[in-house]
């Protein structure tokens, strides 16, 4: 055994060493990595120069790696993409705009051209949309659907479509495509595959592969390059998912990552027309026209909006109008709703003034009574009017009239203003009332219908009367004419007043009364009274008779003053009574006492009469003696006798105050008498009565 080993060592020692070294290289992962890293760039370069297999193989790995990196370190990618994100977005927008412009171009071209009309007709005829017809007719070709089909099971692995629709039966179509291929192969006993067939406008291309094949439905005439693209995609699918294809048992989810590649094959090409510049011009013109229309519409809109706002502004500022709801109708009638005072301005002219046709506005007013100053004034003016020269103002809810205003108008206002809603008070301090003479005269005539002989006229504010009038008419006129509005003074100097005697007498009687013992009569202003009357009555008549209208003079010559007569008679009785005394005594003589005893009643009668005459009486009790005896004794006697009488009278109940005792001097002897004699007639007391007023 050792020999054999030895022999081996001798023969194969170099190879064994090499082998060991190789093993060492292969078993050391670090070393292997180093070695691979030295050749990897070169290998990658060679591989990518040959075909895209390496890139395709690396795609999922790189994709996963990038996805993972973004997830774990987003900031790194944000910083990396930041400088280029702007240009990318700009370019993307520019591309979209260009696409939009092209599509607009196409639409315009087809909308306004003869061909466009034809296509519209076709769309109408076939029931397709116009866009669809345009697309189909202006199409060179379009790959509409691509199916990736598993060769062995005929099951669909992946399907992409240019339209959103058209994917529902994709799996059945895939199976039928397989069946058709089997059928043709069996029918014609050939080994090759069916590569393409045409159904109407559709052509189906089938690109065979080892485990799967691609079927593309194409509208129009596709170029040969499409075939290459499809082949490359199919090849890529085999490269990336070869094992999955071989082991496919019905779950197609594994092939979803191929969708972008398949979608990239949904090529389409449209017919080009020569007039590219013309199209651009058309497009610009159309865009310009649209912009101009937009601007014009905007201006119209703005103007209409401004007018509407102006109108609403003026309308809401209008007194007596309160807006509650407004709606601008652009294509239908506009609406304005609110409250409106019956006297408020008509909104129609306001609308017209703002440049809006009132016919295009539907007004919906609810009536109300506005209380603002203007509306109140309008309401007042509507009711009463305002005469020239007068002015009416409303402050708050107070009405103020100023200027000059006719009396009649003012009177109506005074009567009627409380019935105007919203007005609380009326002030006419500043108003100057004017009177129409004719109306003043008419009012006078109504108040005091004048007799035909009277002429009346009003001048200024003075009523002039002339002619002949009964006292009974003129009297109330004098009393009341100046109380009539417009008459400040009365001039009746030219009126001759006529008195009816009976009425004059009646007035006299009603004023003074007429005692039964008196007869009265009036003739030519003279009142004649006859008969008897008390002094008091007479006194009143004397004093006042001529103040009775129609009595200018009093004739009382035939009238007896009863009280005066009574007084005179009584006075005479008393003054003719003598109370005689005894000689040299203060004692009454018998006849003297008889006379004295009658006196108290007479004095009382006299006093009563005097009082009726408005006065009282003073009674002088005059005592006297005969001439016999000395003077002093006689004076004593006289005084004593007068006192005796007074004492008696007072003792009869008469007032002492009315009495005055006066001792008369001794009567001088009659001439020629030798010596004094006892003259009985001188031993007496006499009386003198004075009427005191």
């Amino acid at each position, binding site marked *: 055994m050792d020999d054999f080993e030895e022999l081996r060592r001798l023969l194969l020692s170099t190879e064994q060493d090499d082998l060991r070294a190789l093993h060492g290289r292969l078993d050391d992962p670090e070393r292997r990595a180093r070695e691979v890293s030295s050749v990897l760039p070169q290998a990658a370069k060679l591989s990518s120069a040959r075909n895209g297999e390496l890139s395709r193989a690396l795609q999922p790995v790189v994709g996963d790696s990038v996805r993972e990196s973004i997830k774990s370190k987003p900031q790194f990618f944000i910083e990396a993409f930041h400088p280029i994100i702007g240009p990318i977005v700009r370019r993307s927008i520019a591309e979209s705009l260009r696409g939009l412009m092209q599509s607009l171009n196409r639409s315009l071209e087809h909308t306004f051209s003869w061909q466009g009309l034809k296509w519209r007709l076709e769309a109408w005829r076939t029931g397709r949309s116009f866009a669809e017809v345009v697309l189909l007719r202006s199409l060179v070709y379009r790959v509409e659907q691509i199916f990736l089909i*598993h*060769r*062995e*099971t*005929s*099951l*669909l692995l992946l399907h992409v479509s240019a339209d959103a629709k058209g994917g529902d*039966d994709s*799996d*059945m179509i895939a*199976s*039928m495509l*397989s*069946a058709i291929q*089997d*059928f043709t192969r*069996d029918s014609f006993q050939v080994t090759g595959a069916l590569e393409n067939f045409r159904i109407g406008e559709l052509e189906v291309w089938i690109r065979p592969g080892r485990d799967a094949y691609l079927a593309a439905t194409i509208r129009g005439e596709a170029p040969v390059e499409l075939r290459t693209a499809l082949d490359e995609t199919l090849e890529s699918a085999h490269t990336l998912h070869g094992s999955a294809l071989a082991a496919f*048992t*019905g*779950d*197609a989810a594994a092939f979803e990552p191929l969708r972008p590649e398949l979608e990239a094959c949904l090529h389409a090409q449209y017919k080009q027309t020569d007039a590219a510049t013309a199209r651009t011009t058309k497009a610009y013109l159309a865009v310009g026209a649209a912009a101009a229309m937009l601007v014009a519409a905007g201006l119209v809109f703005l103007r209409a909006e401004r007018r509407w706002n102006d109108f609403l502004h003026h309308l809401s500022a209008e007194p007596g109008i309160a807006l509650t709801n407004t709606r601008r109708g652009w294509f239908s009638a506009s609406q304005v709703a609110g409250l409106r005072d019956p006297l408020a301005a008509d909104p129609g002219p306001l609308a017209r003034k703002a440049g809006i046709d009132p016919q295009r506005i539907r007004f919906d007013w609810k009536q109300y009574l506005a209380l603002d100053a203007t509306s109140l004034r309008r309401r007042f003016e509507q009711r009463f009017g305002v005469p020239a020269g007068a002015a009416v103002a409303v402050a708050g809810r107070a009405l103020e009239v100023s200027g000059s205003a006719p009396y009649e108008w003012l009177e109506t206002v005074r009567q009627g203003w409380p019935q105007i809603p919203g007005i609380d008070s009326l002030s006419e301090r500043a108003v100057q009332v004017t009177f129409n003479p004719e109306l003043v005269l008419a009012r006078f005539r109504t108040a005091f219908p004048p007799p035909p002989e009277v002429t009346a006229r009003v001048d200024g504010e003075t009523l002039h009367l002339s002619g002949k009038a009964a006292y009974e008419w003129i009297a109330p006129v004098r009393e009341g004419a100046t109380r009539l509005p417009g008459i400040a003074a009365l001039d009746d100097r030219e009126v001759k007043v006529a008195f009816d005697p009976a009425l004059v007498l009646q007035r006299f009687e009603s004023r003074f009364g007429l005692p039964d013992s008196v007869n009265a009569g009036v003739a030519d202003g003279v009142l004649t009274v006859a008969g008897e009357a008390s002094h008091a009555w007479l006194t009143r008549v004397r004093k006042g008779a001529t103040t009775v209208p129609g009595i200018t003079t009093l004739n009382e010559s035939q009238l007896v003053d009863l009280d005066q007569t009574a007084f005179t008679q009584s006075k005479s009785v008393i003054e003719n009574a003598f109370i005689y005394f005894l000689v040299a005594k203060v004692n009454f003589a018998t006849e003297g006492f008889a006379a004295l005893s009658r006196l108290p009643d007479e004095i009382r009668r006299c006093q009563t009469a005097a009082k009726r005459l408005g006065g009282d009486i003073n009674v002088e009790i005059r005592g006297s003696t005969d001439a016999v005896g000395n003077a002093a004794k006689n004076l004593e006697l006289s005084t004593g006798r007068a006192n005796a009488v007074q004492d008696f009278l007072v003792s009869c109940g008469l007032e002492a105050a009315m009495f005055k005792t006066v001792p008369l001097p001794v009567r001088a002897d009659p001439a020629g008498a030798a010596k004094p004699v006892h003259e009985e007639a001188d031993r007496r007391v006499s009386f003198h009565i004075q009427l005191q007023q």
Partner: protein
Amino acid sequence: MIQKKICLLGGHAVGKTSLVAQFVRKKYADTYHTTIGVKVDKKVITAGATEVSLMIWDLAGEDDFGPAEVSYLRGASGYLLVLDGTRRASLERALAVQQRAEEKNGALPFIVLVNKVDLAAEWELGDEDFSELAARGWTLHRTSAKTGEFVEAAFQALAEEMLRRP
């Protein structure tokens, strides 16, 4: 979702197309149209917890003018072998078709459907025929494309059988 291709095999006029129509669209028409080549239909069912999209290939029946084209069977996960209980000839044809199918595509799960059970009184096939088939280890079901009897269950049974296989 998993897709499975299944086929219907059998003699002509045994009711394959009617079975598919009953299964997929719940419809039955008394009029007979012969199938030329193949007609594909689809129905999604749930077998166990799995949604299965069945791609049903309805193949032209075998008749005196030519054999059934079993090449369509390629890639199928299973098939239904259909007989007509009223015609003994359909049994022989079915056996022949099955044999060719197996030769060409290997052993696939399949279920034998003895159709037209609504005409049971007129059946030419009897229990001994069925027990002979059962002796081969085949699963048999009596179905009626007309009334729908056991049609859905047959497809369901086949789908579950297919899913059991790796």
